[in-house]
């Protein structure tokens, strides 16, 4: 257990942000039926803008506001301008559309900021909770708390509010909801803006915990997808739990000789196992 503890603690932080990203994906999917491949890229762009603010001696609060604001603006712009054109198409086409956005944003970030080494430092990095030889810095604790808080917040939004009801109605049947008087574009806007805000927060946390690099942050959407798939793109608590478990498993995989050098495969393996499990349980049903 002593050997395992450092990696359990280390995996918690990354897992929390996977969980948070997973919630961001599920909230959009449950309202507009789009699996957002650009989630990581939107967050990456927000984090890079925040880094530029910090480089220009801007405050932490301003940097966070810029990260979340930029991410919300991009997400909202896509949701209002491009997504409606694909709204009547198949779910896979709606989702693949966001892949185009992801590649464009990633390309822009690489062109504008380049490949130089960068580091996004937060004041919460300086201290943390000690577990023997390991320290869980406050940024990671913040990630865990944010994941749980946002899960609860979004759960309440969807279950208890009028806009949440409209979001669920839209996801079930867009045409019928429109006929019943739901203002489709307005509800869509809320969902895309909310998803953008999640992307902004996740981008900042991942840029700090992982690294500030456009390509890597763009593709960190994969573990979040795995978490969302385990939650069947519906259950927020299962998504959060799956995100944390994926992070911890990925960290602990370092102890497996031979597999350690390939531990980025953990999210894929988890997603594959989940799909196999769901297939079997569907057959039984």
């Amino acid at each position, binding site marked *: 257990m002593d*050997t395992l503890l*450092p*990696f359990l603690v*280390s*995996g918690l*932080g*990354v897992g929390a942000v996977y969980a948070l990203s997973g919630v961001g994906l599920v909230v959009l999917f449950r309202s507009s039926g789009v699996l957002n491949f650009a989630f990581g890229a939107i967050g990456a762009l927000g984090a890079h803008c925040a880094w530029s603010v910090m480089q220009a001696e801007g405050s932490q609060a301003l940097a966070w506001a810029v990260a979340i604001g930029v991410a919300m603006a991009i997400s909202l712009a896509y949701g209002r301008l491009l997504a409606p054109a694909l709204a009547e198409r198949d779910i896979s086409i709606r989702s693949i559309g966001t892949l185009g956005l992801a590649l464009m944003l990633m390309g822009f970030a690489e062109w504008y900021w380049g*490949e*130089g*080494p*960068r*580091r996004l*430092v937060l004041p919460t*990095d300086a201290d*943390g909770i000690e577990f023997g*030889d*390991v*320290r869980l*810095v406050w940024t990671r604790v913040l990630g865990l708390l944010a994941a749980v808080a946002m899960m609860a917040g979004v759960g309440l939004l969807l279950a208890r509010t009028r806009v949440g009801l409209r979001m669920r109605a839209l996801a079930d049947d867009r045409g019928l909801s429109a006929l019943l008087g739901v203002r489709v574009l307005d509800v869509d806007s809320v969902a895309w803006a909310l998803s953008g805000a999640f992307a902004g927060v996740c981008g900042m946390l*991942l840029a700090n*915990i*992982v*690294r500030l*690099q456009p*390509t*890597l942050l763009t*593709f*960190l959407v994969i*573990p979040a997808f795995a978490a969302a798939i385990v939650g069947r793109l519906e259950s927020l608590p299962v998504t959060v739990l799956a995100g944390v478990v994926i*992070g911890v498993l*990925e*960290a602990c995989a*370092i*102890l497996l000789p031979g597999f*350690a*050098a*390939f*531990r*980025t495969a953990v999210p894929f393996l988890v997603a594959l196992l989940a799909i196999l499990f769901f297939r079997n349980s569907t057959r039984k049903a």
Partner: protein
Amino acid sequence: MSRIAFLRPLGAALVLLAALAGQAHAQAAGKPSCGLNNGQKAGGEPIAIGAVVGKTGPDDFSASSTAAAAYFKCVNENGGINGRPVEYIVADDQWNPETATLVAGKLVRDRKVLAMVGNSSFVECGANARLYEQENVMVIAGVGVPRECFFARNYAPVNTGPRVSATLVAAHMAKTHKARKIVCIIPNIPSLGNWACEGAKGWGAANGVAVETITIDPGSADATSVMLQAAAGKPDVILLNVPKGIMVPMLAAAEQQGLNRKIRFASTTPAYNADVPKTIGKAWDKAFDLHLEFMPIESGGPDNANWKAVMAAYADKAAPRDSFAQSGYLAARIATEALLKLDAKTLDRAKVSTALRAVKGFKSDILCRPFYVGDGARHNANTSGPIAQVSGGGFKQLTQGCMTAEEPELADVRADEKRLGL
């Protein structure tokens, strides 16, 4: 006086000022010295020389060919190769082995280049080494990274490579910081992961220093676990043999875990980048040592000053002035000096390859020891270099002299040197 008429002399004055400023800048950088250095523009049939570099992809390695191109431009303005200009053709392999083979094939078979100079690529050594040997084309490369770059008959990189670099910094840490247990971290990239830390291990086995290797997944999001795993064995030193993009988050994770206060950290050459000390911050001041493949870019030697003068006069202002550029400049200088010994009218590939193999005792203050090529089955002439330390937001050279690597795999290189009388 109309407004436009008033602006005209003002514009002329500005142009004159700019010209004077440019001249002052060139004078400050010194007048470059290249090839025959006779100030006469070369004419006649160009001599085709090629290069394959990884420009677009995960990183931009083209600074070496940019510097080589600047040197060849300078050569062409100063008498060329005994009167003939160099036509330097650079191809981008896009970090793709198939593209590397395609572009090298075009250069070697279609453009009939006489040699390749200033190549810097992660993928082309493995992809093209056989082609170069079959077609008898010699490559004086700038920077070689994977094993294949140092194990080919026709490929001679000017740099030390990651394996020798790791051996040298490990030896330095053992000597200066009395390290007896070192963990070397390397990405699981083919021809790198299973090779680049093994030199330090071999050297350690012969010198009573235990060197353990940790192979990592460079795409992993979790640098903290790598640092915790490396620290678990209570080493004296953690040696990072990874690209700078992965190194910075690892150092950040180590700092968050307070490891920089318990363990010494060291790195191979990739840490030698002006952005690194600023990015990693004050926590690493005087706590991070690294090996340099060449003398520091700000060193005051005459050849280093000439490299800067060539860049000032013949390269774009935005072109990087880094160790890649030093390597490209050196490769172009080595090739030029070898070609100048030949009759320009009867140049062919066989003669050029023989002349390049005959390079011996090439001196530059950018290098620790004279460079040679030789007729050996493989080439790793640069096995030295100084040690620097992150200090005051920059780098401070720790050793005035140079260290030279000794490890079992260099036995054949040392045997070749003995045979060549070096």
